[in-house]
């Protein structure tokens, strides 16, 4: 067993620098590495390229890094719900690369799986296809999308063991397993860190080989973006 557990968040974030490319798991605010993001917002690192499906909200998630202007470029599929983001983008302070959600997921997966590029029908004929190679397969046009990797991937799981094996809960899984694969260094924060042997190998979603460091998050706020309920 290779032990990936680190003592504290300081040690978990060792090696991060300005101008690096980071990936962040999560969909909306669900399954984001909230403790790591909070800690990153305290660091004096800037010029970051962040790959994340969304950009958080104004005062939580990646919104915290945006507010401090630590992010130079965002690569995302959907960035509504964040006024500061919109302001920075429209004023030209923030560079934004919007890509279809399925292509974003597959590009991360490909990056971790050793596949440099792939053809997909998504986006053919639209402005996102500009400059991309087109090939017809089965009479249908497809565009070439390249793999994405990151200097660091920050992901969030429900349970993890010290070997870095991870189990996610509910729809907070989303991009986390794919980004875990695509990071040169992947750092996982979990709600519960257990000794090796405590997790059933049959039930593990992300094998520990994709995770370099693991830490139990100090406190989870787990904010809900759209609280929708029905009456009892």
């Amino acid at each position, binding site marked *: 067993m290779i032990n990936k557990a680190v003592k504290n968040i300081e040690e978990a974030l060792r090696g991060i620098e300005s101008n690096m490319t980071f990936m962040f798991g999560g*969909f*909306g*605010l*669900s*399954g984001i590495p909230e403790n790591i993001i909070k800690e990153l917002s305290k660091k004096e690192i800037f010029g970051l390229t962040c790959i994340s*499906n969304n950009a958080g909200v104004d005062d939580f998630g990646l919104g915290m890094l945006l507010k401090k202007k630590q992010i130079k470029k965002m690569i*995302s*599929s*959907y*960035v*509504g*719900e964040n006024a500061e983001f*919109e302001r920075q*983008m*429209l004023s030209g302070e923030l560079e*934004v690369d*919007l890509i*279809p*959600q*399925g*292509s*974003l*997921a*597959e590009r*991360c*997966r490909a990056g971790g799986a050793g596949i440099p590029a792939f053809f*997909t*029908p*998504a*986006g*053919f*004929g*639209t*402005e*996102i296809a500009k400059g991309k190679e087109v090939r017809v397969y089965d009479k249908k046009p497809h565009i070439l999308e390249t793999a994405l990797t990151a200097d660091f991937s920050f992901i969030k799981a*429900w349970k993890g063991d010290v070997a870095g094996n991870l189990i*996610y*809960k*509910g*729809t*907070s*899984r*989303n*991009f*986390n*397993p*794919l980004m875990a694969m695509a990071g040169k260094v992947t750092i996982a924060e979990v709600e519960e860190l257990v000794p090796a042997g405590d997790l059933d190998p049959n039930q593990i*979603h992300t094998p520990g080989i994709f995770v370099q460091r693991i830490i139990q998050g100090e406190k989870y706020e*787990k*904010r*809900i*973006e*759209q*609280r*929708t*309920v*029905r*009456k*009892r």
Partner: protein
Amino acid sequence: MALDKNQIAQRIAKELKHNMYVNLGIGIPTLVANYIPEGIDIEFQSENGVLGMGPFPFEGDEDPDMINAGKQTITTMPGAVIFDSALSFSMIRGQHVQLTVLGAMEVSENGDIANWKIPGKMVKGMGGAMDLVASAENIIVAMMHTNRFGESKILKKCTLPITGVKCVKKVVTNLAVLEVTKKGFKLLERASGVSVEEIKKATEAELIIEGEILEMKL
């Protein structure tokens, strides 16, 4: 009377067939789940990674780890399954999801759809819409026939940046049900009390009108 949003959803629900896997977009499409016809089993897919989506949770049961693609708290039905985003879009691109219902800002007579960007104004992003429209076998658009300035959203050619080409099969609006054919929009049904003339007036694109156009049944 033109339909309201719930009635548009109600009409679209009639397109659902037994044992279909369906992806519903944000807005009017989400309401379709409230009108599943009696005796029909449907599994709803949400592209953030759940198949077998159920209704909203009871007050107090909300779980931040259980949301749909609109980031709303949801529940799951018996037999539901959770997966990652790449697997989710494998279901979509691989055409395992049989029907996609989504909203639009514009639809053109060759089946192009625009729903992700208004240059200089609104840039929220396409989310999963480009993947969905590029692959689904059957795409139904749910939308109002005209925008808030009274301008037609049913066009000869889209004016906004498009989301996908030649993909929309049917459009259900507050005024009419339209089919996208090789020759353009064919008027299939009209809202109760709305005349064919009124629909033609509200539509920029040419309409193919054959025989008597019956009123929609909800």
